[in-house]
């Protein structure tokens, strides 16, 4: 068990180190310079050259870009461990970590329910579809369509249908801007109201994937030896399917671990479509504003988030699958 986690931890650490290094290197390898962009933004207030030079050297200092690269790299790490992701250019002088902190609740609020509910519902419906021809003939094509749909497009279609044409839901935002965030039912309701469409589009795309996966896995499981054995002993179909479902769920869970990265990507673009104030919208404005520090910070945050999510799924898998659990305890 310890060895298993040691290995996982090693993978994750290496991933993290690689990600941090890439993250640090990319903006420094690319053409362009964040300070130029920052100055361009402030440009209207900067009327003479001396003044602009003074400001630019000031910003070079603030962002530590005047130091040798290796110092910058070490500083980057040091700052990272202090939870310091640098200062945002677009929201100067706000720290990037604050920007991310503000955006997290929205992204998690979208992602977690969407992942869990779609996983649960997709698997259930997929299992039902494997059982019933009618369902199979309806759910399956629908699922294929959904899972092949780009997240952003489904989001656009939902927004167009339910927010623009029918006006059932708001087009954008995390809550009615006139409201002040508070612990009230009114505000909670408003949050949910704004949450629903982005959630629905994330949910639907993933749902399709899980449903198909489960449907196909079940069919495989039903062809396995233990299923045939049960059938030969006259066990009712229900029991056989129950076993098949349980066992088919395991690869689905490991599939979940692999899919998390893609789902996060989907959530980002969905947020963008709906102007949902999460990490996705944040990274878009960071990119549009060439806010290197924010881009770096958000990227790292996403990596860490995905690593944590993967780790949770790993643990879940270990708990659910006796094979890995026993294998880890050094059993036979």
């Amino acid at each position, binding site marked *: 068990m310890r060895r298993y986690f040691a290995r996982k931890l090693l993978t994750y650490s290496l991933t993290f180190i690689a990600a941090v290094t890439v993250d640090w290197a990319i903006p420094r390898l690319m053409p362009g310079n964040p300070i130029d962009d920052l100055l361009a933004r402030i440009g209207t207030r900067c009327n003479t050259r001396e003044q602009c030079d003074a400001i630019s050297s000031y910003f070079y200092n603030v962002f530590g870009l005047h130091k040798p690269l290796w110092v910058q790299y070490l500083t980057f790490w040091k700052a990272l461990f202090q939870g310091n992701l640098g200062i945002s250019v677009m929201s100067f002088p706000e720290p990037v970590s604050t920007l991310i902190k503000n955006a997290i609740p929205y992204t998690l609020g979208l992602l977690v329910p969407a992942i869990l509910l779609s996983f649960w519902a997709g698997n259930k419906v997929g299992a039902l579809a494997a059982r019933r021809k009618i369902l199979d003939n309806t759910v399956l094509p629908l699922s294929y369509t959904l899972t092949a749909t780009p997240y952003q497009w489904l989001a656009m279609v939902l927004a167009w249908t339910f927010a623009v044409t029918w006006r059932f839901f708001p087009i954008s935002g995390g809550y009615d801007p006139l409201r002040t965030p508070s612990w009230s039912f009114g505000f909670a309701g408003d949050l949910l109201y704004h949450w629903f469409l982005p959630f629905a589009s994330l949910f639907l795309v993933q749902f399709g994937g899980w449903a198909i996966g489960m449907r196909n896995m079940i069919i495989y499981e039903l062809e396995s030896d233990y299923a045939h*054995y*049960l059938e030969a*002993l*006259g066990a009712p179909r229900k*029991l056989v399917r129950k076993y098949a479902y*349980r*066992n088919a769920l395991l690869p689905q869970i490991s599939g979940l671990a692999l899919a998390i990265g893609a789902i996060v990507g989907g959530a980002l673009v969905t947020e963008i479509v709906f102007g949902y104030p999460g990490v996705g919208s944040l990274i878009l404005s960071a990119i549009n504003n060439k806010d290197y520090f924010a881009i770096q910070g958000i990227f790292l945050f996403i990596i860490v988030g995905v690593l944590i999510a993967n780790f949770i799924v790993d643990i879940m898998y270990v708990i659910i699958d*006796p*094979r890995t659990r026993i294998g880890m305890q050094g059993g*036979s």
Partner: protein
Amino acid sequence: MSLRVENLKVYYRTLAGDVQALDGVTFGIADGEIMGLAGESGCGKSTLGNSLIYLSGRMKYVDGSVELDNKELPIADMHEMDRFRYKEVSIIPQYAMSALNPTRKIGKMAKEIIESRGVDYHSILPEFTRRLELVGLSDDVLRMFSLELSGGMKQRAVMVLSTLLNPSLLIADEITSALDVSTQKAVAEMLVEFRDRGFVKSMMVVTHDLSILHQIADTILVMYAGHLAEKAAAEVIINNPRHPYTRLLISSLPEVGVTYAKKRLTGIAGTPPALLHPPTGCRFKERCPLAFEKCVEQPPFIEVDKGHFVACWKEI
């Protein structure tokens, strides 16, 4: 007679057409009898074993009837057959090592399957553990996953589970082929023990290994290319075979003590016929050294001696 099979025909559906894997077999197994079913691969012996309990997707019931304890087995009806499975007919499958659900503890799986057949698990549990002990397994295995058992342990667990409801007929399908000689012997002797203790009334042991059957079977039924070739008491088949195929088969088996230098054995020339379009008449005639004109007709499976059935024109 515990089991009575009449003119059973079960074919395999393939692209090219039906493979006549089991083409009209008639035989019986008496109460308390262990019948060995032997033959080369592809002779239809597993098809016969399986068709008595579970016709898989590609198997097609064509003709014939099966009677167990004077009750007709609805082998062609997947659903109807459920009533008889496990309780009346049971199987230790070829894939016994992988027959256990990998994600259920063995006890729990047993409970679920037994209760699904309307039997109270708790009342049967003492007997279950007793039998597990008999085969050298402690009741700890009930709290284990199949992963935690060795191959032999899994096989024994399946043997006990399969026979727990004291079926009238047990089909043991190639259960010793993948085992080492020492384990093979233990498992084979266990089968006998199960019969002796009345866990099962009668048994059909499907294997390609005649020497195993000689050790444990009361009678041996030899199949060739979907047809029955010979059936007799085990000793008779081994020591006094009458079908040319059986004879050639036995004479080609090396034994401890026989050496290449001293006694050169020979195999049977040729290969078994394809069953997609099987030859008419005796299906062995192409390889048979004794074949003559009459062999173009299919020889009947006839009792030539008491309890000794042969399908060969030369023996009639």
